[in-house]
């Protein structure tokens, strides 16, 4: 096992990883920017090292700073958290070249699955069901148009290097395809320095389901069940639930098998997810893989009793999986809400500012992952996530009541600060959500026709 791990991330996830390190007796070094020097992760760390100014490009996204920090603090491994460099194959290679273990899959697996167009090509090769569309990237506008016509509208044009809902366009009218194609390519170059795009059929109303997998270096792969991530705003998840409500156990089992097969085919190592969309007719399509720990991992931890960060570290250290598939028996229902500093009534724009009051909820089976405390300034340099509230209960009805109770207790205030807490409670109360009939379209439906 490692003696020292460098945590190359910030916010709640830095704290999350740090806590498991401490429980395992591993020394944790927190790499931080100047903006994060007064945060709990830095205070709780066994050692901290300042790696750069607030701008991510010069700190959390700077491979040289992170590798130098790891080497000079004697870290043997780097935990990248999520976002930032967590799915960057070049960074994974640099770590390897410097004798550092990056906690995650090998560089070539990240390169193949992290890039959305090559992931699509991989899925076709691995015989995973994919939405109609191009078999990989498509450069010629005429060919792209033919593919779109064949798939049937609406279609979506997405950047291969994209993520977080950026550089993607939904096209409903064939006449709008060519201008949209050109615009998406231009945007992809501007945002990611990479103009490759691909085309696939777009589902207006779909369920977004992902499967959590664990794979060791010895070829063993298991899945830890599925999560429903259909509640999204601006194509980013806000509420996640496991098991996916209203989905037959058989369907979840089938998704699990598909994900395990995909992970085996890819030579996956570590914790990761394979994401699928389900259409109204029960059709299942692979959309992408995430080569990292996910924001919503706590709900899987709550129903399985498995600490995913601990598993990541054991796998990275070369251990065999401690669980066989039959040992994984999820129990009960868990729900997570992402509490963001944002204004739901102004298209969810972030509202940075000083937090003056911060009292998270407590109570039975209620977990709050947060880095926020009174007098912390939420800056525009990073994402507006304030806290993740996760609750567990034996049944879905109880879990919904528990989450509403927990969100109702949450006190967050500060000048200019706005949170999505009331909005989250509105979603919980929405009939479509209560009856598990919601799709990825729910938030848009709510915003265009708010409840009386």
């Amino acid at each position, binding site marked *: 096992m490692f003696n020292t791990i460098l945590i190359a991330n910030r916010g709640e996830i830095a704290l999350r990883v740090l806590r498991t390190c401490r429980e395992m007796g591993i020394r944790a070094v927190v790499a931080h920017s100047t903006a994060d020097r007064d945060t709990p992760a830095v*205070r709780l760390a066994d050692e*901290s090292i300042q790696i750069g100014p607030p701008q991510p490009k010069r700190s959390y996204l700077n491979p040289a700073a992170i590798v*130098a920090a790891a080497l000079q603090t004697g870290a043997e491994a780097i935990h990248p958290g999520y976002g930032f460099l967590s799915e960057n194959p070049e960074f994974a290679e*640099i770590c390897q070249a410097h004798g550092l273990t990056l906690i995650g899959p090998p560089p070539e697996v990240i390169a193949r699955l992290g890039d959305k167009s090559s992931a699509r090509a991989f899925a076709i090769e691995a015989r995973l069901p994919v939405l109609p569309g191009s078999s990989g990237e498509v450069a010629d506008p005429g060919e792209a148009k033919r593919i779109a016509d064949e798939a049937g509208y609406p279609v979506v044009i997405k950047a291969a290097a994209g993520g977080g809902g950026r550089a993607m366009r939904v096209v409903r009218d064939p006449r709008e395809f060519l201008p949209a194609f050109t615009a998406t390519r231009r945007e992809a170059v501007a945002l990611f320095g990479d103009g490759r795009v691909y085309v696939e059929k777009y589902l207006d109303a779909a369920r977004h389901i992902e499967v959590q997998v664990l794979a060791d270096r010895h070829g063993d792969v298991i899945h830890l069940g599925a999560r429903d991530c259909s509640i999204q705003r601006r194509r980013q998840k806000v509420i996640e639930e496991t098991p996916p409500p209203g989905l037959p156990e058989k369907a979840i089992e089938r998704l699990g098998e598909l994900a395990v097969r995909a992970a085996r085919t890819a030579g996956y190592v570590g914790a990761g997810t394979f994401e699928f969309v389900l259409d109204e007719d029960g059709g299942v399509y692979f959309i992408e893989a995430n080569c990292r720990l996910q924001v919503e991992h706590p709900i899987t931890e709550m129903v399985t009793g498995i600490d995913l960060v601990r598993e990541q570290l054991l796998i990275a250290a070369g251990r065999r999986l401690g669980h066989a598939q039959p040992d994984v028996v999820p129990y009960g229902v868990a729900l997570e809400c992402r509490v963001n500093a944002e204004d739901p009534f102004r298209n969810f724009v972030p509202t940075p500012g000083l937090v003056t009051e911060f009292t998270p909820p407590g109570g039975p089976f209620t977990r709050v992952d947060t880095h926020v405390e009174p007098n912390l300034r939420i800056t525009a340099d990073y994402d507006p996530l304030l806290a993740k509230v996760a609750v567990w209960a034996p049944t879905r009805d109880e879990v919904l009541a528990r989450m509403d109770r927990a969100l109702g207790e949450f006190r967050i205030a500060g000048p200019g600060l706005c949170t999505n807490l009331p909005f989250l409670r509105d979603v919980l109360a929405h009939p479509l959500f209560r009856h598990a009939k919601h799709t990825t379209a729910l938030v848009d439906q709510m915003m265009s026709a708010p409840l009386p």
Partner: protein
Amino acid sequence: MSQGMGQGGMSQDGLHGGLPPAGARPEELLAWIAGYAAELNTGAGPLRRIAITSGATAVEVEWATPEQAAPAPAAGDRAAAADPRAWQPGAPHPNGAAPAPPPAPPPAGPPAAQQAAPNGDTPAGPVPDAAAEDAVVISAPMVGTFYRAPEPGAPPYVEVGDMVEPGQQIGIIEAMKLMNPILAEQAGRVGEILVGDGTPVEYGQPLIVLRPGDTQ
């Protein structure tokens, strides 16, 4: 102590007669520091906080003035962080383990004692006061290893007392085998060299104190 509140480290050439015994055990070091603090504590308020870092030997001592029993101003935290002598190489973050209230900004007068340079690299003789109004601190623009000379055995780029021109190289920071030159942005005299040759540095860590006004 003439000023109400003192804060700083100590060096070989500080006010005190000598260093603690080499290789001193923690309790010996503590006894020595307690004695040293008592010696300095003439006329000032009660001792308020001592922070010790062994590794690179940095000591911070803080006194409260009789009229200053109340907590130090909150702004002091940031001020201390910007003060080169508050930096403790290799130590936990200054805002980390220290249970005491944040230290106040350094006084205008001479500080209680000077920071010990890592590796004993500071030359003999009185160490100029970095808190003086005209001091400019050159800080590390990146994480890496600081080198004072172009290669082992070569003369350092600068020594204390040297005049530097704008754009003149004062050291190197090596990160991932890339040698990044560190340049002075303005002219001045080298007042203090805060980091020893071959020392790992963090982003923003003060390296050298420059005195732009001292051109004589």
